[in-house]
Every structure is written in C-alpha cells, then in structure tokens.
C-alpha cells in the first residue's frame, strides 16, 4: 500500500518502448521503396528537358545505355557509350542486348525497354549509330530519357 503513496505528486516519464517500432516502420518503408543505383557512371550525362514524357512503369524491364563525355577528363571530351559498368564499343551492343534478353523470362522479352540516357550536347550521329545497332539486334522499344520540364 505504501508504494502507491510514493508515486503521488511526481509525473511519470513517457514510455519510449514504442519508439523502436515507429522507427522500424519508417525503416521498412524506405527499404521497400529504395532503389539503389546499380551502376557506376563513368560518363557525364545531363539529360535534356521535355514536357511530353511517359513514366517507365516496370523498372525490372528497363535496361540503360549511357552516352556522354567521360567523367575522367584524361579520356577526352568525345562522347562515349557505357553499358553496364564499363565503356563499350558499338559492336558490344548486340551481345549486351542478348544478355539482357537471356536474363528475363521468355514471355517478357518483347517488353524490355532500352532507355537511352544521353547527354544533351551529344551529336546525333552517335545516337543514330547506337539506334541502328539496337535495330540490328531487334531491340526496338526504346526510350529517350529526359528530365521533366516545366
């Protein structure tokens, strides 16, 4: 009985026992929504702006090609192509497309989008060459990646 009397007067501290739960909830939210950058960019890409853009819905069905001047200035200023983690020549596009196809289920192969992330100061010649290679490998669904303009 004497215990109850002791508590009177002092305000009890707020319990922090549920704090970890709240933090965990936030943590799980970010874990689920997170997409980690899977490639190291070796080229500098400043995307052009456009207004009429479509969202690429299914990230699992998108492969990226990067075109732009190399970030390492010693390699010059001419735009280079980057596939996966390294620079690539034009004739490496075909095996890259095939590897991309092999990674997916057969039914999904037609739905793979190749997203071109091209620096806005690149000359069209290079982009056209890359497009021709994609056509030759029968990778016809492409996306000109842009940033969303005003």
């Amino acid at each position: 009985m004497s215990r109850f009397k002791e508590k009177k007067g002092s305000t009890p501290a707020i319990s922090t026992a549920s704090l970890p739960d709240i933090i965990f909830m936030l943590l799980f939210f970010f874990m689920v929504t997170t997409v980690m950058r899977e490639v190291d960019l070796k080229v500098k890409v400043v995307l052009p702006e456009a207004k009429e853009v479509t969202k690429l819905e299914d990230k699992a069905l998108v492969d990226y090609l990067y075109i732009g001047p190399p970030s390492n200035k010693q390699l010059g200023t001419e735009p280079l192509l980057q596939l996966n983690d390294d620079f690539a020549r034009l004739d490496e596009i075909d095996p890259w497309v095939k590897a991309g196809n092999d990674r997916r289920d057969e039914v999904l192969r037609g739905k793979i989008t190749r997203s071109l992330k091209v620096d806005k100061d690149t000359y069209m010649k290079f982009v056209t060459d890359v497009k021709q290679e994609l056509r030759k490998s029968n990778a016809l669904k492409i996306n000109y990646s842009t940033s969303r303009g005003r």
Partner: protein
Amino acid sequence: MLKKRAKQGPGEINAGSMADIAFLLLIFFLVTTTMDTDVGILRLLPPIVEDQESEIINQRNVYEVLVNDADMLLVEKEFIDIKDLRAGAKEFMTNPSNLDNLPARTRVSAAECREQLAQYKGWLAAADDSSKARFEEGVKKWEGKLKAIELIGDYTELPNDALISLQTGSKTSYNMYVQVQNELESAIRELRDELSKEKFGRKFTELDEKNDVDQDRIKAVRLVYPQRISEAEPVDLTKKN
C-alpha cells in the same frame, strides 16, 4: 537477503539502444534512396527491312521535318521556328481546309466496316493455314474501326502511308532532337485530348488504361489520330539536293 536473490532471475536486456540501431539503418536508407522513376519519350524503332527502295510514298502524305547541323528546322522545305512546329504538325494531321499538299482524310462509315468485315470473315473461312494470319489481321482491323464508330460516330482517318518523317544531320545536338520529338508528341497529344474531351468529357491523358471501357476509348482515339513519327533511316543530308 536470500529471498531477494532468488527473485531476480536473468535480468531483462535493455532495449533502449534498439531505437538507435534502427535510426542508423533508417538514415542509411534515407541517404541511398532515389525515389524518382525514369521518365522519357517512348519510341518504337522500325525493324530493319532489306529492300527499302521499293517503297514509294506519296509526297503529300509525308510531313518532312529536317534538322540541320546548326539545329535549324526545315519543315516541308521551309525554315520555321520550333515554336510553330506544333501547329504545323497539327495542321498536317487534321488538314482542316482540305489542302492539296496535306493528306486527305477519308471518312469511315459503319456500313463500309461491316461490308469489309463480312468479306474478310468469308476469306478467313476459306483460307488455309498459311494465309490465315493475314485475314485474321484484317478482321481485327475492321472490328476495331467498327468499335470506334460505335464510340465516337463516323470519323475520318489518315491514309495508311501518312507519317511524320524526322531526319537529323550528323551534328544536330541531341537536345534539339528531343525538343522536336517533344513538340511532335505535344501536337498529337493535344489533338487526342481535344477529341477525347469532346466525345467522352475527359482528356485522353486522363483515360485509364486498366479500365475496360476506357481501353476501347483509347483505341478509338488512337485510330483517329495515330502516332506515326518515323525514326527514319539515317540519311546523309549533305548528299541530298
């Protein structure tokens, strides 16, 4: 003394630092997170065709857009500003005053659709396996048109070979190319929005692809204003006279 000890048992683990650990993880994911999804202009490249020479296209059905090495626009053999490209493309698609140098839109009627449909179905019934696919395609095409008429009434359609042809010089900047693509896309989207607003009370871009009713509407609007921007074969502009 003895009594007290027995009561103690193994003490509880202090969970106070649990929050700190969770915080650490949380901050890690906060930093590495990229929420933005990739956006861009979707295009379908044409498959490689061996003999291109045989294709003869009627000049009035082609909206020729050339961009030279200095990022200047030559549209239908006239220099124009990029601001006027959208209006130009819209005029090409609709041909409002029935000009001779723009594609002639032809009226599609329900009667014609039914007639063609019956004909194709007849052929399909008589066809052997090898040519079946072609007739099935025909049936599908006319069924689509009939459906469109049910939804939006009689409409006019572009000739089959009408297209916007976009060609660039080798030193055209990619930025300019994307801007031109953007304007052309705008033109078609605006036309589709107008039609959809008039017929269904909602913009084309607001129609829901996953909804069955809207899906038919989308197909119908696409039939009236098809998106035919050709990713033309690379041509050496310097050799063109």
